[in-house]
């Protein structure tokens, strides 16, 4: 994966940045989409990535930092290859989210907010993901996993490469 400490998009990615910027009446509207692209490319949004992205928009690094730190989906530190994010808001709480989090902590041997020593899995708790009909639920990378039980959690973990 390209280095988050020395970030640089490829020529194709720079063309994509330009395309995204052209979609908005003010190119700054593309900041979130470009930050998504940067995180997908470099793994996380380091301070160096913030400076690099700021340069692509003619914005101050401080503005980009303010944006990055405001949103939960931008990681400012390296994350695991997989991110397991358990919803712990009201419906999931009612249906047993606490037990699911405890089970994951035991299974992974880490606390919430940590990444396993092999760099494979980051465990998070998050606020409502709006899949309350399937509570308790969690997001594993791009996927929603619903109606969780400890057994189902084990199967999902075993399926992660």
């Amino acid at each position, binding site marked *: 994966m390209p280095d988050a400490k020395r970030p640089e998009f490829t020529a194709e990615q720079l063309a994509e940045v330009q395309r995204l910027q052209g979609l908005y009446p*003010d190119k*700054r509207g593309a900041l*979130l989409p470009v930050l998504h692209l940067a995180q997908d490319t470099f793994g996380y949004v380091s301070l160096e990535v913030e400076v690099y992205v700021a340069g692509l928009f003619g914005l101050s690094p401080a503005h980009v930092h303010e944006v990055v730190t*405001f*949103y939960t989906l931008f990681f400012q530190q390296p994350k695991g290859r997989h991110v397991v994010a358990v919803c712990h*808001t*009201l419906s999931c709480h009612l249906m047993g989210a606490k037990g699911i989090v405890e089970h994951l902590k035991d299974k992974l041997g880490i606390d919430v907010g940590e990444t396993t020593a092999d760099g494979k899995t980051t465990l998070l708790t998050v*606020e409502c993901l709006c899949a309350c009909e399937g509570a308790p639920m969690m997001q594993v990378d791009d996927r929603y996993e619903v109606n969780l039980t400890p057994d189902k959690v084990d199967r999902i973990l075993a399926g992660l490469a």
Partner: protein
Amino acid sequence: MAEKVFTRNFGIANSHTLPVYRERGGYAGWEKAKGMEPAAITEEVKKANLRGLGGAGFPTGVKWGFIPKGSTTPKYLVVNADEGEPGTFKDRYLLEQDPHALIEGMLIAARAIDSHLGFVYIRGEYVQPWRIFSGAVREAYEAGLLGKNIQGSGFDFDVVIHRGAGAYICGEETGLLSSLEGKKGWPKIKPPFPAVKGAFGQPTIVNNVETLAAVPHIVNRGGEWFAGLGTKAQGGTRVYSVSGHVVRPGLVEAPVSITLRSLIYDECGGIPNGRTLKAVVPGGSSAAILTPDEIDIPMDVDGPKSKGSMIGSAGVIVMDDTVSIPEALMVVARFYAHESCGQCTPCRESTGWIYKMAHRIVDGHGRKEDLDTILDVAKRGAGTTICAFYDGAVGPYISYIEKFREEFEALIRSGSGATPPEPTVHGSADA
């Protein structure tokens, strides 16, 4: 069985694709709308008594009418697909199972307000809905339903899909616009309202996914027909999200005259495991909690209001008699403490302090003055902030304590009263 409007295509194979949508009558509303005067479209939506289905319940046609008359500057249509209200999941299904209904609704709305550029702001966590909706937009472009001179009508309309990045406040319409403009999602002071000065400083209409999904049907079958499906307060059916302790959690589409009791017991099979109902939140976590003697109300914009609550996003969260209400309040308070954007002092400070107090009560360290302190802080802050976020938090703070005060007091009496360890909002060790 009442007629389905919003969910009529749900569960049909490939309902997200253009051929299936068309086979089932899709884009008939647009066919009609493209020959109508823009003002006549807005008039039809007013007649329908369609109320915003994202949470605020504002009359949609009236909102459209706020675009300054004769304005020649660019005007934008923004779809709020930043679904985030705890207990709500209808927009996710609409994006995945009937994306063309939203696109068609956007086309019609755009014609009504003379907009040629629309943005769809989808919450960042909704990756699958974003992929499916993006596919539908591509299909619509290929079929000439989006872009320049749509079907020879002379009308141009482009759609930009914008992914959020994780922040509940971006579901607040002016917070959403800040985010769309490449900033942190701080709500803006109103007035000016977005219809006058919105996205990128131009007149903008922000509508919820479900609200726009109603529009093709309204144009196709008439505002009176839609109004007739509902009550005097509000036309139509709507899609209720029901979760928590019911036999069959999920979406229920029903006329807005349906009672909360009927939703829980008839549509969702009642309370499982032989338990009984203790409490229910009728409209997403920002709605005040209701007790079992308060559920014989219609689920339109007026029903929950008559009990001091609100219909909000129609996210119904059901709690059986095993639930600890103080613990539920702690969980809800954690949500608001985490999601407060930090712009207004009363909200930023109170949400954090109230969470800490709720946490220590649950931990057995509550003090007898804590309950009155929470109520005092909640009531003082209400109505003092830029957006409705804090007012939404106040709904649960006050109602949980006032309606279940004895349970809180018993917990405080049985606790040690000693100083507890500090909880953290962001570390979430208390999952």
